[in-house]
């Protein structure tokens, strides 16, 4: 399978992380796995960009972190969306859709 080891645009990664967290709190590894699964292995998030992104989002107050127990009872840091983050997710989703829609239009015309 061809996988896209993208250097995802920074804003894109942020959007993916926010979206992933919409369904509930997850820890970093889980987020990476989830993105990989849902994108059917097309998108792989390198840890080198994931954690700085998480900390950046946390710094902005869009997500918050909390230490908790993972599946096999190990200590892990769980991230969840804040109210601000939820609003951001909605806004960014919308602008992303508009963007891709516009790109689609251009690609499909002519």
């Amino acid at each position, binding site marked *: 399978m061809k996988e896209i080891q993208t250097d995802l645009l920074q804003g894109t990664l942020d959007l993916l992380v926010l979206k992933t967290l919409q369904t509930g709190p997850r820890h*970093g590894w889980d987020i990476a796995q989830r993105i990989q699964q849902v994108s059917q292995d097309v998108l792989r998030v390198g840890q080198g960009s994931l954690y*700085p992104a998480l900390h950046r989002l946390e710094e902005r107050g869009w997500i918050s972190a909390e230490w908790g127990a993972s599946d096999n009872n190990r200590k892990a840091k769980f991230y969840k969306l804040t109210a601000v983050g939820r609003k951001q997710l909605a806004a960014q989703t919308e602008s992303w859709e508009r963007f891709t829609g516009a790109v689609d239009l251009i690609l499909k015309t002519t």
Partner: protein
Amino acid sequence: MNGILFKLRRRLRALFHKSELERELEDELRFHLEKEIEQNLARGMNQEDARWIALRSFGGVDQVKEESRDVRGVRFIEELLQDVRYSVRVLRRQPGFTITVVITLALGIGANTAIFSVVNAVLLRELPLKNPEEVMWVWSTRTDRDKAPFTLPDFLDYRDQNHTLEQVAAFCNVGLNLTGSEKTERLQAMRVSANLFELLGVDASAGRLLVPEDDDPARRPTAVLSYESWQKRFGGDPQVVGKSLNLDGETYTVVGVLPRTFNLPDRDAELAIPLRPLLDPLRELRSSTNFLRAVARLKPGVTRQQAESDLTSIVARQRQQFGDPYLKKTGVRLVPIYEETVGNVRTALWVLLGAVGMVLLIACSNLAALSLARASARYHEMSIRKALGATSVRLVRQLLAENLLLTLLGGAAGFLLAIWGVRLLLALSPTRLPRDNEIGVDLTVLAFAAGASALAAVVCGALPALQASRSEMRRGLLSSTTRGVGEGASRNRSRSILVVAEVSLSFILLIGAGLLIRSFISTQAVNPGFDSSNTLAVRLSLPKANYPNRTAVSLFYDKLSSRLQALPGVESVGAISLLPMSPGLRVIPFIPKGQGASKGDSFVAQYRLVSPDYFRVMKIPLRQGRAFDSHDRDDRSAVAPVAIINETLASRFFPNNDAIGAQIQIDDNNTGPRPVEIVGVASDVKHVSLEDKPTIDIYLPIAQVHEDGVGALTNSMYWVLRSTSDPAALEPGIRRELRSVDKDIASADLRTLESYLSDSVAPRRFNLRLLTIFSVAALLLAATGIYGLISYSVAQRTPELGIRLALGASRKNIFRIILGQGLRLVGVGLVLGLVGAFALTRMIRSLMFGVTPSDPITFVAVSSLLIVITIAAGAFPALRATKLDPLRTLRE
């Protein structure tokens, strides 16, 4: 808002709980790695592969960490803290260096801050008055003086006829006898127009101040206390408001206290009472003495010139209308109150600040040289750090952090030192500075200290930092054994510039101090005109009630003088109304001709009433005629009263040596000039200051004082005793005799004439001492700088010198090479200093006496001193260079 708080909290956490954050980051990443390994294992890899692949895909743990840290947004501060921590370690490892720098800076910044806080309070801060720029001092201008007081009718005319002044208020000094407690006390006070405080816009610190109604003669007399007197006499008790004081037999009610920052025009005045012009017997008398001074507030929008010409036109009218008393009065001059208050100390204060600033600059350049030397010792360290990836910026920042830390320490210590230094300065200052009660440490002073520290940091630290960023670090690493060869040239140039600067600055300072020393010597060479050795002077105030007229005063004089004369150890006794060199001034107009001359011919003379023996006691020689004797009394009313004039008066107005027997008219009373006959010519005496030109003096016998002058005489008179041994031993006897003659006499102080003389030059001596201390400090610092430079260059040139010695250079040659290098710098510094000194000493012309700003003796002496000191400073290391062992230096 919340967002900001949230961020702030996070930033603070990032700064102060860094280890916690680091641990969490570590945990988080480790968890991720473990999950990754788990997954790889689940995929069927063995343990080792699983781990290795996980690690590889992870892409460098430290990089991730570093990026996560960046997100925290406090990287800059973190690095700064790192720099500071490192600096603390470095500085603690070199306590000698650190202590030297901190102490030097503390002294330099402390002295600067102390003097600045004086300059700030006295010169820079606005006077504590409402719109002070509108307030003017009012002086009468005359044909013979351009700043004279005026009469009460003058003032009333100014007040009632002007169109340009919002308000005007007059005042004069007055001495009052305070009775009520067991002993009578003499109080210095001021009579002031009751609107004075309203005019100035000052508020009471307790009770109220005088209001215009207090001038009303129908109201009970009121008084306000000066803050100082309130503290001193009443311990700051607010209950003092409403208290009664018995002053000169009248009851005054204390209505309030002046603010701490307010000085009455007479600094020693303890209280102010209303002028009450309607009760003053002189209010109609246009020929009375000019005893009033005044301040005025201009109407909004009126310029000083407009007000001056307005008031001058009043004087013109007066002259037309009243004639004679106004012949000499030409108009009115307004001086801004700031000028009037601080004008006479301005130059001295700026000079002191400039001088102490130069000392700081010199100290800083020494420290810069020290830092340079240290930098070259750390060349190796810096090279390694650079090789390991430190950026130039980071290295420079590190050096700056060290310097900042040092100057911060020095500045803080200096600031504390300054708080104490200001007090010391004021305590040592012989004369009270104007506005000294406003001097203190405030925000401006704090800012100044901070600024001085910052400047010091830049001067001390910029050069070495610059050098560190510029120099080729790689070479430092390669040539660690021949350290100093690569970077020597430019570093030496920096140090040479520093030494030249030091030499020229200290030369300027030394010239300044030298000129003041020469001025002081000039004052000491001045002959005061009397013999101050073995004499004691005592100032007396006689209660007015007991001595209402001259007969009573004469009787008192006879009684006391015979008693004092009888004291053991007393050689002679005399009395004078105003002692030479004592504070105070008494001048009268006189006409150097007999009857029939008009008032327009009048001149002004120093006026003294003396006892017959006065000239003998003071050893003032008589050039012609006779001294007063016991026959010159008021009972010889048929004969004109007699007078003695001084040589200057005689030679100016009686050039044909015909003074004796001539008549002059003196205006020492309220009814107009009266004739006196000259019976003697005394040699000149310096009455006001050793630095003044000869004055014109007229002496009259105390026994013939005009009745109008009795009050002034009883208010204050001085008795002088010449002793056969130590004059101080006479004191108990004098006090005893005074008490037995009249126990109500207030005797203020007993002092030797010598102390009066030395007090008269005390301000000069004080300025001189400060400037001398500063310039000696500068000289020592410069010498240290030269010593350091030459030692350093000897150390640096050791291999070269070794070769020279091996090739046959004589010790003398080596000595000359090394010392010559220092002398060249001194020479350049001297030339620059000369230029600077010529320019700057002109500004302190007003502080000089008996020397010119380019006094050759001072310039030659200072240059020689500087050359000798610098040669000495350079000779030590140069001598050491001659003792080098060529073999050893070459082997090393």
